[in-house]
């Protein structure tokens, strides 16, 4: 994963941090306000023509954080505090979680999101990915299926019992020796569905790998997924709730999230195909009316905002029209609703038939 070249190994990052510190002092020496110039990235805009360059992974303008504004002073304060912690982590070659960092100065940071932004700023500043900073997330992803790999020399043998959940490795860069006989990778939005498939021994009968990020996927899950795809070149399908949040989770897998736009090229999975649940599935599979919930005002607002995202227009017009259809119908449903008539419906009918029949977009 170290395609950024030599610039993101700990030694170089420490050098960059020192260079940064030096620049601050230089500014001060010259009586200039210390300032930080950050590139800005985005993965989408609301340009309806879709002719923007959001997909180019280039930065869109710069942000200058200096002591001119109070909010910038605070941001700089936070950034430096986090940078100091990161320098320590890198020097000691330890890993810290975002939560760890937050609790170093909880009163100053006031909330986790502040730390998260600083970490993102530092990634942009040092032109690296988060894990290069030795900042790890507490992984929440799960994986099962026909897969065997090593994480820092420790064996993960999922094949041994393909329907048993394993946590997604946290140190993805240390994963090696991936072996699989799977034919595809299935991403499911939620743990409950993952468990459903596990209970139905889905992977015993289907040669595949199943992954869940338990809601919005975390970075290790997405990086691990990328790693699998790069190593195994398998098709990827995604199964999410038929609601705006499910759709957003789906787009997060495929296009990345806005916060981590700077790193999107290492996190997104453009190969992903949407397996379901589509708005039309409710009719197609005879879902009882009762299982359909009306879209709330909040849902509608979210969906409307998502419709404007340029990448849908440009790269996934079919997804976009499904989202439009969802709004037209004004109803949503959860994947579990598909199991209402028959518990093993997902494992026995829905997923296999969709994959075989090409019922994905």
């Amino acid at each position, binding site marked *: 994963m170290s395609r950024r070249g030599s610039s993101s190994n700990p030694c170089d990052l420490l050098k960059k941090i020192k260079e940064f510190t030096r620049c601050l002092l230089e500014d001060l020496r010259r009586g200039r*306000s210390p300032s930080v110039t950050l590139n800005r990235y985005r993965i989408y805009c609301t340009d309806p023509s879709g002719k923007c360059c959001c997909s180019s992974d280039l930065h869109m303008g710069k942000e200058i954080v200096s002591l001119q504004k109070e909010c910038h002073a605070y941001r700089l304060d936070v950034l430096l505090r986090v940078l100091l912690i990161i320098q320590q982590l890198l020097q000691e070659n330890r890993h810290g979680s975002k939560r760890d960092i937050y609790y170093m100065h909880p009163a100053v940071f006031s909330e986790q999101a502040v730390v998260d932004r600083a970490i993102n700023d530092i990634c942009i500043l040092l032109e690296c990915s988060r894990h290069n900073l030795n900042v790890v997330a507490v992984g929440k992803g799960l994986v099962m299926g026909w897969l065997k790999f090593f994480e820092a020399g420790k064996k993960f043998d999922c094949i041994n019992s393909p329907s048993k959940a394993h946590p997604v490795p946290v140190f993805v860069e240390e994963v090696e020796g991936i072996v699989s006989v799977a034919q595809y990778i299935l991403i499911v939005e939620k743990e409950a569905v993952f468990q459903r498939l596990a209970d139905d021994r889905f992977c015993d009968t289907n040669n595949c790998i199943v992954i869940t990020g338990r809601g919005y996927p975390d970075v290790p899950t997405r990086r691990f997924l990328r790693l699998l795809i790069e190593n195994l070149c398998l098709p990827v399908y995604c199964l999410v709730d038929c609601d705006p949040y499910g759709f957003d989770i789906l787009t997060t897998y495929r296009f990345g999230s806005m916060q981590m736009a700077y790193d999107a090229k290492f996190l997104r999975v453009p190969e992903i195909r949407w397996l379901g649940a589509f708005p039309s599935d409710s009719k197609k599979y005879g879902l009882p009316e009762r299982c359909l919930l009306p879209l709330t005002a909040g849902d509608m607002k979210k969906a409307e905002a998502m419709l404007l995202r340029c990448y849908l227009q440009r790269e996934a017009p079919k997804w976009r029209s499904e989202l439009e259809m969802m709004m037209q119908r004004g109803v949503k449903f959860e994947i579990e609703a598909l199991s209402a008539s028959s518990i093993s419906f997902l494992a026995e009918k829905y997923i296999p038939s969709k994959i075989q029949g090409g019922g994905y977009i």
Partner: protein
Amino acid sequence: MEITCSQRLCQILICSAVQRCRISDQLCRLSVVLKRCPDSDPPVIRVSISDTGIGSCLQEFQGLIYRRNHASAEKWDGMLFITTTSISDNEIFHYHLNFKESAAARRLTRLPSTTKNGLKFSGTEVSLSTWECIDDLVEGITCFFQKMLILKVPKVAVELVVERMTGSRENFLLAKDDNLLPCPMSNIECLALGFQDYVLKHGNMFDKQCPACLSRREHLKVGSGVACSSDSLASTGQLMEAVVIFRELPDASSLSCLRECSTTKVIYFQDFLPSVIPQSPLNALRSIDWENYGLTIKTYVVGESGHAVIEWENLPPSTHIDIVLHCYHKKVKIPRTWQKTQVDRNLAKKAVKLALDNLKERYKGTLLSAHAVKICSYALDLARTISNLILLSNDKEFQGECLSLLGLQPQQMGEGKEVEDCIQEKIIAVIEINDRKSRKSRNAPDFLFEAENIHEPEDEEFQGEEGVSILDL
């Protein structure tokens, strides 16, 4: 103190005298002599206002002619005697003016002149007789002079002589030597100096000893500014001078100043005359962006005596702000009609801001804007973090480099405190410099800084539907 008519007249006459002194290139003397005529009953006081300035052009008295209220004065016989001569005159001219005459009939009556015997000198003496109480007169003129002293009109020595009995002379307020500085000083410099004296002398309240105010000149932070009328067509060219003095008591602990700290009485002069502040500079003062200087106006009132009184919010204890404004014309002007001159609104604002900026410039960390104060509060944290970035680095070479950038010696490394202090100092300096820069540059639209508000759930901490409630099984 109610100003009676003869007192007012005295003030006006003193002002005319000052103007005559100013026009003169020489060091001049202005004497006011109050002399009781011994045998009169009620006692008649002879008031003589004499100056060694240029001779009178008489127009100023002409102007007084038409001021009716002076005529109606009762404690005065209405007779004004004027003796004047200019440097080029060969004789000394004498006039008298009877204010008891009806306004239309009032004329300057020329009396026989006296010869100067070839001597080259100039000067004017104006005298009048009044039945007023001598003490009242002394008090009124003293008070007026106190204010006048603030102006420290250059090259004018002022003296008040009171002769209660023949032979006994009391001299008051003789202009001191240090006022008569040999080197030429600008009006604004004089004003600043005079105002400092005023402030140090606690608003010239000689009689009251304030235990807290042991201020010395060094404790005062003085800023001054002069704004010129941009209107070049105005023949005389209006000027506005402003001096702002910021005084912090050295020991703000227990002693409290007799003066109310949180208020400022704005002193105003118009054409070298202590004056009630007109509306336009009043508004100007109010419209200043005080926040920019870290000040907040709590209330802003115009007192019954026409003084603007500003009450400050959040002023540190034992801190006092004094403000004086002086508006006059570049070219000395003997007032002809005693009419109020129109003051340019922007002049006052500009002058005060210049004075504030000057103060800010001269004294580090004073009058920082609220904004800068807030940013300064981060300085310590920033300095500590940056110093830690240096100190906690395991790269000795880097550390050395940083120290040298900061101008510190390698042995100053050990403690860390010095590095931190040094950085903090520099950061604060930068913030102050920034703060001094005009608002415009600071307010430049910096859309670059505004992060778009992207509200998308934080990917990892998102506690959506899988969110775990504590007691959920």
